């Protein structure tokens, strides 16, 4: 008689705001097998390119996800712009970058909260989300939407941010930086947090690279991949440091994200000082013909939008390969042999985004 316990973990489960399912096979509390199952959110909207003109598809691309909504929209637009050889005005590039980095801030803060929640640190969750609201306020003031910004379009951006507003934002970031400083100290120094994250879900550098880990998941294992280094948007004009850590455990992944919060703030402030005046969009005519793999760095890692047009208003294919999809194999590896209590911590440590993973 085996001494196993089978726990159907999810899809409806409070630590998983998004539905995935794991068949956990436990011995005592040790996980001997964890078989994931996804597909609960699959909508199939990649196929909507056949029904929506490529210009309207921006709105759908944005709704790939409510967290890096902006980056999805921007990546899609940049992909189309590459195919159609559109040069967007410089100010638009900067604005896209600023919003992208705000997205990262908001996403990382959200993640920190969820992560704290996964190991039962409710106060920390609240604290992280308290700060996050300030980022959302900026979104709402500059784009009109809290989570779905809708400010990107092909050929540029839809809204400008006034320069005095920009400098106000920059000043505001100073106080946010202070609050984030307090928050991240707890994540990085508190003993009970370290107890839950140190040496949990270790992913070696080799595994991280060859299993295709991206983003903080890869960087936490010492793999320095950061697509911002390819210099899309205004990143080629900004100084983007790549944060890595070598342990490959949950703590390292947390460390990377904590530090990235500060680099994002730096990037925004730098962008705000450098942003040139000028138009924010160009007129787009014609239809895309050709294909392109547009890649961008999302909070969770490398995002690939593969777009293929045939000269009509309807694209042939939009294929969105999201960071989480490629982070799933490393996750499966990490879960082997962990404890039941570690499961949510490990799952969250890759910052899973099931919504865009399943499209």
């Amino acid at each position: 008689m085996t001494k196993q316990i089978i726990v159907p973990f999810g899809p409806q489960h409070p630590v998983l705001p998004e539905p995935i399912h794991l068949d956990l096979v436990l011995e005592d509390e040790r996980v001997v097998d964890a078989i994931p199952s996804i597909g609960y959110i699959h909508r199939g909207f990649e196929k909507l390119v056949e029904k929506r003109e490529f210009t309207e598809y921006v709105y759908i691309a944005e709704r790939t996800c409510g967290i890096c909504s902006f980056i999805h929209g921007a990546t899609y637009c940049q992909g189309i712009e590459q195919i159609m050889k559109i040069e967007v005005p410089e100010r638009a590039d900067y604005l896209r970058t600023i919003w992208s980095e705000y997205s990262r801030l908001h996403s990382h803060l959200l993640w920190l909260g969820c992560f704290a929640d996964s190991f039962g640190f409710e106060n920390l969750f609240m604290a992280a989300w308290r700060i996050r609201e300030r980022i959302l306020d900026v979104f709402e003031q500059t784009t009109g939407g809290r989570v779905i910004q809708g400010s990107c379009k092909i050929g540029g951006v839809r809204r400008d941010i006034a320069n005095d507003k920009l400098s106000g934002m920059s000043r505001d970031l100073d106080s946010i930086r202070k609050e984030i400083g307090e928050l991240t100290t707890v994540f990085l120094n508190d003993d009970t947090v370290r107890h839950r994250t140190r040496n949990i879900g270790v992913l070696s550098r080799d595994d991280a690279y060859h299993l295709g880990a991206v983003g903080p998941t890869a960087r936490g294992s010492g793999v320095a991949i950061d697509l911002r280094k390819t210099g899309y948007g205004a990143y080629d004009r900004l100084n983007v440091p790549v944060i890595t850590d070598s342990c490959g455990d949950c703590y390292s992944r947390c460390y990377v994200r904590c530090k990235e919060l500060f680099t994002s703030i730096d990037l925004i402030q730098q962008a705000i000082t450098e942003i040139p005046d000028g138009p924010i969009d160009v007129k787009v005519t014609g239809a895309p013909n050709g294909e392109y793999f547009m890649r961008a760095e999302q909070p969770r890692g490398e995002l690939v939008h593969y777009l293929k047009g045939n000269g009509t208003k309807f694209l042939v294919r939009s294929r969105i390969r999201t960071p989480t999809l490629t982070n799933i194999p490393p996750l499966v590896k990490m879960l082997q042999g962990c404890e039941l209590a570690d499961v949510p911590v490990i799952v969250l440590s890759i910052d899973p985004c099931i919504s865009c993973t399943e499209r």
Partner: protein
Amino acid sequence: MQIVQLLIYLILFPLIAAVFLLFAKKGFERGWIVKLSALGIGAVSLWLLVAGFDKGLITYSVSGRIFDLAMLIIELVIAAYLLWLGLRHKKYSVVILVLIQAALLIWFEASFGHTIVELPNNLFFDQFSIIMALIIGIIGSLICVYALGYMETYHEHHKDIADRRGMFFFVLFVFLSAMFGLVFSNNLMWILFFWEITTFCSFILIGYSQTEEATNNAFLALAMNMLGGVAFVAALIYIATLDPSGRLLELGALLSSGYAIAIVPAVLICFAGLTKAAQMPFSSWLVGAMVAPTPVSALLHSSTMVKAGVYIIVRFAPVLSGTTEGMMIAMVGGVTFLLTSCMAISQSNAKKVLAYSTIANLGLIVACAGVGTYNLMWVAILLIIFHAIAKSLLFLCVGTVEHRIGSRDIEDMGGLIERMPKLAIMMFIGMAGMFLAPFGMIISKWAAIEAFIQAPFGLIFIIILAFGGSATLFFWSKWMGKIISVMRHQENVEHSIRQEKWVVLWILTGLVVIVALIFPLISSALIEPFIMQIYGHTTRLSEANITIMLLMMGLLIIMPFSMLFQSKTPKIAPPYMGGMTTVGDMKYIGSAGVSRNLVLSNYYLRNYFGEERLFMPGTLACWGLILIAFIMVAGVIL
């Protein structure tokens, strides 16, 4: 003169029954003999209670010369037989031990045989004897009755095992007889004789199935108990050297002879007691004895064998009281209690869990007796009573379950409450008896804490008790949880259990509850006078607390009826499964489209409480403690 007849009757009657059983060929005849003799033995034990509870200590002179000789011969015959067996099975440790013991015995007989005078009082009797007699007479014979049905099925299931049931029942009854002899004898030589008989009987019973494992474990048990036997003989020799007239061979005389004289034999005999009670360095034999048919386990664990071990230690408690040697023995019990309670957590074999729990409880008894203050003595006796009843019930329940579901693994007992409701309730009560307030064992635990706190160095034991007690709680509760979990659509497989089994089980279940209810009575009628007579003062629980316990018991009894009065009709929904749909029962479609059965197992925490982890340290610690005791004793001798 009436009581002594009862005593002799109790010793001899099982023997006669045994002989009949040896020759009874038909199952039908055997059945009647067993049932009638069980009735006879039980009834007489009760009679003894009625006749003797107010009598105090009485000794009887029964002329013993002739018995002495017969005993010696029987012992030598057994030794020869064991020698032969040992050689045949290449168990040289047994061979060596048998040779040593026989040599010692012969030497003893040769050098002191002529100097030892005939002891005036070979038999004796006091309240403690009544308690033991009741345990042996009632529980022991109930188990024998139960064994009737059990063995029948046993042989249906195991066609490959030779049917030696005549011999089996013969040995069972001899065992009972020897136990009676053991508790009624005042003559240490007699006690030794009966002692060796129980060792021998258990050896035969453990090896009953004659499989390799059974044989090995039987020899293991034999070797360890023989080790104790050697110590016992050594004690006799020591006593005889002190007083060649052999007057000190009388238990009563020895006990009242004072520390200087009694401590050496006390330690030696208690060492023998430790082996028999399967305390820590020797615990493996009792665990190994699980290969025997379940009634045998029940017998060994509840009313015979191991109880002989603690019986003798309790007898010697007044000598041990306040001595360092006693402390060491108590510590052996304490360590055993703590570690085996923990080890029980890691076991899923029901009989093994029961075995470890037995060892643990015996450990507690030994600890109480080793410290040996009057109130601890009270606790020790209480523990003996409660443990015997609850443990026999549990063993018999497990045996019955095993026959119906074909497994003795706790994990296979899930949902027993649906499959065998009556039996599950009995098991539930039995387990409650082992660890829940206000049942027996917890009363004892409570009394033990209150007693230890007044004893020298009692703090150590209280801490052991606190930690070990919580471990106990863990393994019982999870087992309990297993049997009461309701897995739906299980079939009831309880019908067709034979009537006589039910009778036995119901009686034992009733006893668990009744004894918990009337224990104040038992205490005041039997235990307290006994303690009083030894120590000159006694203990008792306060009346208020007893009332409260009774109240709690009452609550427990009426609580289930609350299910009949429900304000809202409950609606049944499947358990929460993270949103997964249950297809049929306890099934769901999991990842990769695989249909999975919901399986839930208990925690065993092997990495923390496993035998592998705790056994060695425990053994070493206990050997160390025993060694200290021996060194001190050696000091006394020199």
